[in-house]
């Protein structure tokens, strides 16, 4: 079950909430959908789930278009909307039963599915309560349970961890990763560690346009084309001597001594090259003691900020 979004546009008045975006999600992939508030994440999800029709362009789920066959697509999608709306006056079990029936789960299988969802989502203690009496975290679990009740091939989760405490967040992330082994998952969030923890691929959207697409690593590379190393050596002669020696390596683009620390340097490698090995060898040759050789990673936050602020 793949999702193909092609030239999707959604207009609200003169504003384009989603502006001509195209991307693909392969079966079994967990896609992290990232972007500042109001970037168009929710709108895109509402279109994929057939809640709204696009102004232009199309979304195909497993080859079926959302415009032509919404009723087929809706069956294979489990959706957790942004604010997790629920019928607060319904008891948990009754609610799950209702959703299962609407999702056309065969009558004989409904009890089993409910039991399984209660187990997977950890609702056992609260299952007889009315939804309105549950805490926010449990409500979120009920929301997840109703999204998965019909064992959909595709899960679309709009900010699934908002309002949860850190333990619950870890649990939900674990759950999403487990689900993602068999299912296609699209997950929106603006919490950066979350996408890193859960997603195979990240899509960053800003002002209705895709600004980045790739794994966390490829995004890092894109943002910071070269490798940056932090190096510290001991028992070397003079600082200048070390700098010249390192500078003369083929792979090194620039050496930048760190001011306060002695014999500490930031070393930028040339594009697509790594200088870790040659620096190590250089130290061995000169009998310098290498006490630090740390690759400096660009944080996802920096990439995000770089891409989404103009």
């Amino acid at each position, binding site marked *: 079950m793949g999702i193909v979004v092609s030239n999707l546009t959604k207009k*609200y008045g003169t504003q384009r909430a989603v502006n001509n975006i195209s991307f693909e999600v392969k079966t079994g992939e967990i896609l992290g959908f990232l972007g500042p508030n109001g970037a168009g994440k929710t709108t895109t999800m509402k279109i994929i789930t057939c*809640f709204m029709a696009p102004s232009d362009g199309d979304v195909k789920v497993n080859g079926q278009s959302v415009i032509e066959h919404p009723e087929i697509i*809706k069956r294979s999608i489990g*959706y957790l909307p942004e604010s997790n709306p629920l019928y607060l*006056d*319904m008891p948990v079990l009754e609610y799950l039963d209702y959703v299962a029936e*609407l999702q056309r789960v065969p009558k004989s299988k409904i009890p089993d599915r409910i039991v399984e969802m209660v187990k997977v989502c950890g609702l056992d203690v609260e299952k007889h309560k009315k939804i309105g009496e549950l805490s926010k975290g449990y409500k979120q679990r009920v929301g997840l349970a109703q999204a998965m009740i019909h064992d959909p091939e595709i899960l679309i989760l709009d900010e699934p961890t908002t309002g949860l405490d850190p333990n619950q967040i870890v649990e939900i992330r674990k759950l999403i990763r487990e689900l993602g082994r068999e299912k296609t998952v699209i997950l929106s969030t603006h919490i950066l560690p979350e996408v890193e923890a859960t997603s195979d691929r990240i899509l960053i959207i800003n002002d209705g346009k895709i600004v980045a697409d790739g794994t966390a690593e490829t995004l890092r590379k894109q943002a910071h084309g070269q490798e940056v190393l932090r190096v510290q050596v001991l028992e070397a002669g003079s600082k200048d001597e070390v700098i010249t020696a390192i500078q003369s390596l083929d792979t090194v683009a620039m050496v930048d001594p760190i001011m306060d620390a002695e014999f500490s340097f930031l070393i930028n490698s040339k594009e697509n090259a790594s200088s870790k090995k040659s620096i190590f060898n250089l130290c061995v040759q000169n009998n310098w003691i290498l006490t630090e050789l740390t690759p400096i990673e660009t944080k996802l936050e920096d990439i995000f900020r770089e891409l989404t602020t103009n």
Partner: protein
Amino acid sequence: MKSVWTIAVKELRSFFDSLTAYILLVVFLGLSGFFTWLFGSDIFFIGQATLQPFFSIAYWTLFFFIPALTMRMIAEEKRSGTIELMLTKPISDWEFILGKFLAAFLLIFIALALTLPYYVTLLFIGHVDSGAVWSGYFGMLLVSMTFISIGLFASSITNNQIVAFLLALFIGVFFLIIFNVLANNFTGQTALLFNYLDLSTHYESISRGVIDSRDIIYFLSLSYFGLLLAEMSLAKRNIVE
């Protein structure tokens, strides 16, 4: 179509889970019973074994009760966002509205069925024109369908229940009173048109026992039109530009 039933059952259950259904039933039976048997131009006052007094009071009671029943049905789903959840399930907008319609209709059906003892009582008191009674009940159901559709339409265009309630009354007043008044103030084709649009004319003939296909078509088409408008107002989310 199975989903329509699923939705209807859920809605009906939520009427009974909250106090809505009980209040409606008690007040409806209380009011209509009071005016049918005890007060005003009741059965003993007019001295005929007929349910006519009941039908004329039920007509007005339902006019107020049905909007109170339908006002939350769609408006509340829009306010709380559950509509997004529902309409991303494999059901069409039409099935969604039809399910709501059916739930309200079933509740009214129950309310009317509970007044059948009135009919049984009458059978003991005197000679009853049973045909007129059944035709009256039939007319009552048709009128309820129309009121429910209007109520659902009103509920579909706002996310405020009070607005939905008042709007349904406002639309209802046109069909119950204003068209009638207009019909009396015009002549010729215009008068005929307003007279045809007036709901009470159609209802009165049915409640007297005259079942005319034109009246049935009037009620059914009005109901259908109301539901259609409700569906269109939901579908508006697709075309906001």
